[in-house]
């Protein structure tokens, strides 16, 4: 168990260090998210009512689009210099590669969220009626679900030609449940509904997280097989 965790951490650290040094995706992701939120705030002068209605969707959509930019990079980096073959020639198991990469992608996404989230409050003059703590939990578990599926599918598409364009196309249908649940739950916190009114959405997100934690563990060996 300790050994396995050490292998996962090794991949996680390597990915984070090379990402934050190259700054390729993180900078693009942050720029993209900030651009979206600024553009939207200028495009239609939102009244308080419409803000509460559209903002949750806007937040999640911009997160997912900027997240995809990062996901497309994770395996591209391994293809460069054939590093993936180097990794697969060592004793690490493919699911450990997956978990390490998912963790690194999650940290990058959370980094983007921490930078952009306060900006939503500033640009949209938002005052939160529900609990900030619950909002953070929703952002966190929703991001986990997105990253787990995304890291899995990015491995699949990275083998294919035109993979950058393909990832969003196959990712979105699979993301529907977690995306809708996250938007509903976020919106409920914004408008200050009581927890039991949106608890089912939170449960749905958690179930989704669990499924996509376990499923790739079973399938990832096949995905990572080098032909």
């Amino acid at each position, binding site marked *: 168990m300790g050994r396995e965790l050490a292998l996962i951490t090794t991949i996680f650290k390597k990915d984070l260090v090379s990402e934050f040094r190259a700054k390729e995706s993180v900078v693009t992701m942050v720029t993209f998210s900030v651009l979206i939120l600024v553009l939207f705030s200028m495009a239609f002068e939102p009244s308080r009512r419409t803000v509460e209605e559209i903002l949750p969707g806007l937040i999640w959509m911009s997160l997912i689009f900027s997240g995809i930019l990062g996901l497309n990079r994770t395996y591209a980096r391994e293809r*460069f210099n054939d*590093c993936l073959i*180097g990794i697969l020639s060592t*004793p690490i198991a493919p699911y450990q590669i997956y978990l390490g990469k998912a963790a690194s992608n999650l940290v990058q996404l959370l980094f983007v969220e921490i930078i952009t989230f306060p900006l939503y409050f500033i640009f949209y003059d938002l005052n939160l009626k529900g609990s900030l703590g619950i909002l953070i939990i929703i952002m966190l578990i929703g991001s986990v679900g997105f990253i787990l599926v995304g890291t899995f599918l990015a491995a699949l598409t990275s083998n294919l030609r035109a993979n950058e364009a393909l990832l969003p196309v196959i990712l979105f249908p699979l993301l529907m449940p977690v995306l809708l649940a996250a938007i509903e739950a976020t919106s409920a916190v914004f408008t200050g509904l009581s927890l039991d009114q949106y608890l089912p959405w939170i449960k749905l997100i958690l179930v989704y997280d669990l499924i996509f934690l376990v499923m790739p563990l079973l399938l990832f060996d096949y995905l990572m*097989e*080098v*032909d």
Partner: protein
Amino acid sequence: MIEGINISKTYGSKNVLRDISVRIPMGEFVAVLGPNGAGKSTLLKILALISKPDSGQVIIGDQSLINTPGELKRKIGIISHSSFLYPELTAYENLQFFGRLYGMDNLEAQIIAVIKKVGLLLALNEQVYTFSRGMLQRLSIARALIHNPEVILLDEPFTGLDQHGISLLQGVLRDLKSNHKTILMVTHSFEDGMNDVDRILILNKGQIAADFPTENLLSEDLKRIYHEKVAC
């Protein structure tokens, strides 16, 4: 010792390897020659346990049935014309990364030892994207040997090297051989690295077309045999 028994592999409808068996006893250095598309790299990846054959078996060391694939991979080091290195990481970090994947203890001392051996101590903390082709090659050799493997598999390691790089790699191969390592090298050159080779296999269309020792073999003989076997 590394052995492949009755290895077959198809891609789609294409038979890339057809029932191939090779055995390289401990300490032997075997070169695999063959035209492009003969299946050399495929065979190497299967022997390295990176890719699975459709049928057949790979045995490494003595007790292959007891060991897990993970344990067996510890006995193998691969060198290719790709470096398998991460440009944003330093030389040290690259070796540390792979050393950790091998679950090595006492890693720091090993890294220093192997980096000295390839003469890169001064560049230890520099990011790999700043490296010249020659430095990259040395580091990729260090990477392949960090865990002191018994078996070294090489896939066209001389591709793209200048004269200096060629002699460096030849020195490394000689060194490995004198340490009784088992070596299998895929190549398409009749000269580079051939000095220390014990045995040559010619692979053509997924089959072993010839298998002969290099003792008393003249370079002209080798070329003649090769063209005989591959022409058909």
